[in-house]
């Protein structure tokens, strides 16, 4: 076992996959120096032909990723900020997501679009989003939101080996997290939720960094509320079975997600719960999300993105307190 930070777990996963498969390469802006560290150190190991600093052009980077994937490679495309996926919407949503369908299942687009996501640094409306619902809404894409270093490593390896385009949004606030990582190789399959904390009173489905806030909230509520914290880890595919099983046990559920509320991740999960476990519910399904607002910057950010006190309150309310 060794202790790795979140970013280092990601770069180690990419390095292992690059060593294993020479079709894997990294392309993006500043991936050699890596401002968010997740591809740091790769150029020294694999050279600039496989860790490619590209022009400041999301269209070219994402488009080249899709083209190279269709022509037999497994590119890892670093968009820097996840928000920048909007710049490459045609390439990601229209092309990467739909080429397998358009080719009648004969040509796939195995690639990863990675980007640092979420708030916490007051960076404002264009650098603080988690475009999760948008990705989830576009069939053909998979979506990974790792909430800790261990998951980040195992999920990145699965994402690179997947035969579909996978969006991998890692959270800024998780960057300082450290965790014991096994020396031996492991892979976390996409579509397997994890119960991060077992409980009996209320099911808390939380995503990305919100998992960590929920765990902290559960700790503070110990003795008062027994919370079961579920991290879906991947939203596409979504392990709804694990969520339903928990809801059938606790009869209460709150969904905590950092993307904006309207037509959001929480709305989708809530609807699936209602369809499959309505008769087990003792209270309406509730949710806590970012407000329907641009993500405010600086001191105002905390009024848009859920913070610990609101998470605690949301769990208490869902538990009927």
């Amino acid at each position, binding site marked *: 076992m060794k202790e790795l930070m979140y970013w280092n777990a990601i770069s180690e996963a990419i390095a292992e996959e690059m060593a294993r498969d020479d079709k894997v390469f990294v392309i993006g802006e500043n991936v050699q120096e890596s401002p968010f560290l997740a591809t740091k150190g790769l150029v020294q190991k694999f050279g600039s032909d496989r860790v490619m600093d590209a022009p400041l052009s999301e269209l070219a980077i994402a488009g080249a990723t899709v083209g190279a994937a269709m022509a037999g490679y497994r590119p890892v495309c670093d968009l820097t900020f996840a928000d920048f996926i909007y710049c490459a919407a045609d390439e990601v949503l229209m092309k990467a997501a739909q080429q397998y369908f358009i080719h*009648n*299942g004969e040509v796939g687009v195995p690639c990863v679009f990675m980007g640092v996501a979420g708030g916490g640094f007051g960076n404002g409306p264009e650098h603080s989003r988690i475009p999760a619902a948008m990705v989830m809404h576009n*069939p053909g894409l998979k979506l990974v939101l790792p909430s800790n270093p261990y998951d980040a490593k195992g999920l990145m390896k699965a994402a690179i080996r997947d035969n579909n385009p996978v969006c991998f949004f890692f959270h800024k606030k998780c960057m300082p997290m450290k965790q014991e990582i096994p020396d031996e190789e492991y892979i976390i399959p996409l579509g397997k939720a994890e119960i991060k904390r077992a409980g009996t009173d209320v099911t808390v489905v939380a995503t990305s960094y919100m998992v960590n806030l929920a765990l902290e909230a559960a700790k503070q509520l110990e003795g008062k509320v027994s919370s079961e914290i579920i991290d879906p880890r991947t939203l596409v595919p979504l392990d709804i079975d694990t969520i339903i099983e928990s809801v059938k046990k606790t009869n209460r559920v709150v969904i905590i997600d950092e993307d904006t509320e309207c037509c959001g991740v929480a709305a989708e999960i809530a609807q699936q719960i209602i369809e499959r476990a309505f008769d087990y519910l003792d209270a309406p399904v509730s949710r806590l999300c970012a407000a329907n607002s641009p993500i405010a910057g600086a001191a105002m950010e905390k009024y848009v993105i859920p913070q610990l006190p609101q998470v605690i309150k949301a769990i208490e309310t869902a538990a009927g307190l």
Partner: protein
Amino acid sequence: MKKLSKQDLLHLYRSLIRTRKFDQLNIRLAAEGKLLTFYHSAHGHEAVGTGAAAVVRDDDYLFIHHRGHGLPYSIVRGIDPKSCVAEHMGKSTGWGGGITGFHAVDKEMGILSSAGTIGSGFVLSAGYGLAAKKNGRGQIAICFSGDGGVQRGQFHEAINLCAAWKLPVVFVVENNGMAWFTPNRDTTAVENVADLAKAYKVPAEIVDGMDILAVYRATEKAVELARNGGGPSLIECKTFRYRSHSEGRPDVSHFEPRSKEEIAAWMERDPIKLFEEKLVKDKVLTATLIETIAREADEEAVAAEKFSFDSPFPDPARLPHMVYAP
């Protein structure tokens, strides 16, 4: 420069004729309501796709322009055009299994995708070029587009990347001066697309897009450069759209009918007429051969219509399985 044998020239001529006959078939079927989708005719554009696609190897990549929905590029490559007709009729024997509406795809012949969003082929072609450069097998990519497409950012971002990284990509621009109903002289101050390439230090050539041999030779040069590590080139083919943007639409410039004189003048330079005259003069073609080739193409089109009509629709139960690769 490859010496074109009589057989090569006849292949080009036959491909042009078959392209036009199948284009006419699609036009008629669209008018009869038998195509379950739209159609953008290649009438007038045939020499560009046919001439340029004739140059490549089977393992090269082609990103096609939307005119003719793949016909000019695929027929010359030996792909059976009945799969085009069947796709437009929504049949399982179509080249996309009848589920794409119109997209031309042929994995074996390197026709990956085709753009519904005009101009999106530029950056994907950069990706094909990147893959080709990495695998060292000497492959190249040709990206076909129109003059409207180059006004999108994708063109500029792709050609810049291809030039910077010397990717083996040839940009063939079919410049017919129109984007839908809007003449490009009113939307760009740049008359020649070739000038844009020069800004990115990419060699560019303007050729007569109605002259199939001129297109062939220019492409041959650009492909050779790309294959030998010389990076991208651009070929601007001046051509003309004889019909409206798509079938069933008015043929207008802005909101007024296009000039009949202008269309008539370009008809005088019809790409098939020009090539036919040359081949007759060079004694490659005879009146009998012209008639035979036309008759065979007509028969092929009739058979393709029947084949497509008789083919089954795809099983809708397949659809949910076509979203994600296993």
